[in-house]
């Protein structure tokens, strides 16, 4: 229990360092990308308006003071008001969160049920010819960018066969194509890692021990290879989860999926700094929690990470 608290504490310290770095970077980017008051005021604004904005946002004060105010706002979770629609930026971002979470869970779910069996099959007997065929396909798929997959899927299912919608919010099945895109984009990597992990466990001494004790191929795979292989796969799954949470930018954009990725792209286009900040921080918190949960899964699954019981 004590060691668990310790782990949580070290993660918290990591979070603080992470948020500090992110906020400082954001602050600096905001200042070097031009006069923020001019950016906010927009093109063709009069000097009076710009001055008013400068005073309003405190851009006329010293950089240090501005930085401290900036940090204080972040601590209070006050990211300001969106420059586009005048809503509080955080609330605006949180409105879009469920839709990204839905897509994330769908993609992880299909990715897992597709890639783990495929990886296990591939890793169990890597030399076989038909497995080498799959392995080659996986390599090619891994090199295919998500937007190519997305456009192909749209062309086939939305344009030629017109069986699935390509735009979010247009019917019950709108989730299928974005989910399929993300699954195809992520699963090759997962398949390869699972296959490599399985192959690696079959070369382990403990695997040979089980064999020497008469374990059948299926017992060898299910009890002496898979659990150990999944352990090393979990961290990749966690990374993929974090990637999806940060908004699968291109996929969300292509399918007009109303998620964090889409608002991040839009707010960058509009130079809507409060919204950019709010999005970045929401993602940072989510990734932090994913890592926290992963830690606990590892602790549960790998006895070597638990406190010694001797």
């Amino acid at each position: 229990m004590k060691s668990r608290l310790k782990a949580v504490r070290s993660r918290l310290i990591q979070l603080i360092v992470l948020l500090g770095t992110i906020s400082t970077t954001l602050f600096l980017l905001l200042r070097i990308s031009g006069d923020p008051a001019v950016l906010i005021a927009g093109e063709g604004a009069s000097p009076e308006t710009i001055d008013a904005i400068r005073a309003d946002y405190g851009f006329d004060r010293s950089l240090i003071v501005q930085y401290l105010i900036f940090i204080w706002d972040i601590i209070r979770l006050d990211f300001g008001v969106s420059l586009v629609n005048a809503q509080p930026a955080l609330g605006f971002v949180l409105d879009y969160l469920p839709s990204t979470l839905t897509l994330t869970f769908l993609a992880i779910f299909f990715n897992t049920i597709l890639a783990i069996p495929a990886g296990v099959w591939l890793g169990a007997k890597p030399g076989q010819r038909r497995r080498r065929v799959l392995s080659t396909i996986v390599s090619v798929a891994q090199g295919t960018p998500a937007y190519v997959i997305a456009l192909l899927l749209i062309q086939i299912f939305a344009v030629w066969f017109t069986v699935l919608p390509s735009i979010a919010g247009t019917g019950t099945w709108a989730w299928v194509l974005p989910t399929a895109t993300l699954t195809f984009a992520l699963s090759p990597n997962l398949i390869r890692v699972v296959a490599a992990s399985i192959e690696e466990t079959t070369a382990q001494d403990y695997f040979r021990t089980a064999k020497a004790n008469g374990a059948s191929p299926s017992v060898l795979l299910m009890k002496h290879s898979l659990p150990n292989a999944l352990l090393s796969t979990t961290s990749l799954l966690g990374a993929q989860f974090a990637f999806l949470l940060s908004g699968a930018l291109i996929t969300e954009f292509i399918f007009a999926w109303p998620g964090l990725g889409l608002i991040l792209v839009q707010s960058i286009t509009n130079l809507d700094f409060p919204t950019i900040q709010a999005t970045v921080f929401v993602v940072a918190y989510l990734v932090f929690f994913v890592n926290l949960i992963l830690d606990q899964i590892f602790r549960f699954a790998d006895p070597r990470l638990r406190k010694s019981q001797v």
Partner: protein
Amino acid sequence: MSKAIEVKNLQVSFPTPNGYSAVVRGIDLTIKPGERIAIVGESGSGKTMLGLSMLGIQPSSAKVTGEVIIGDVDMVSANDATARKLRGNYISMVFQEPLTSLNPVRTISSQLSESVRRHNKMSKAEAEDRVLEILTSVGIPAPKERMKSYPHQLSGGLRQRVMIALALINKPALVVADEPTTALDATIQAQILDLLRSGMGDAALMLITHDLAVAADVCNRIVVMYAGNIVEQGPVAEILGNPRHPYTRGLLNAIPKFDKARPPLMPIPGSPPTITEVVSGCRFASRCSYADSQCTASEPKFVDNLACFHPVVGVSQ
């Protein structure tokens, strides 16, 4: 099982660019019930491959011919299901690396009882009783607590005891122990050797080692292997007292002695032939000071427990 285990003309070969090349070159061996024999030889002499192929767990690229008769079954020609029933049951193996030979994410108890329940119709509770019994008999302190432990929580010596327990748990006819003490420090080594000498129950032991002193300490009979062949065998006293093969004599001269005279160590010059090397005649000839033209012309047959044209006579130094 009160029948001897017989190895007949066992050959293990691996593919090389020039066709198959044998690392075990037609071994004949009989192991009587309860006997303790040592297979002695340098690295690369084929002793480990002999052990692995007796269980049928050699690397998948290997080609095995000949016979390994255990009970009524020939392990070489038996189908996989039949061979699996024997493995861990009638013949089992202890490996060199106790630190990595147990699954790190499973408890000692679950790994041992898995093997018990695979070969016996037993309830979980009965299997655990058997696990406790065998852990106690191999001298593991506080065995009840250890059952719940994971491998990383045990020392190397304890883990090797667990491995021996795993090998013995189904009361096999033969335990093959491949360099079981090489990875352990000297005091622990002595304890494990004690266990192998007197804690094996009715099981016969085939101890694979490069160390003649260990072989002499534990076993009744010594079999000397060189480059895939048995070159000499006999009771311990005979091999140590009157080694006839120049290679055996060379091995003995390479052991440090601590008596007053302390003769200088005599290394055997050169190294064994590699797997791809083509050797005509006796495979030891190029390293042997007794070798002549006969030795390079033809290979000596294994007769009267010896494969040599020019046996050394006289008492070892």
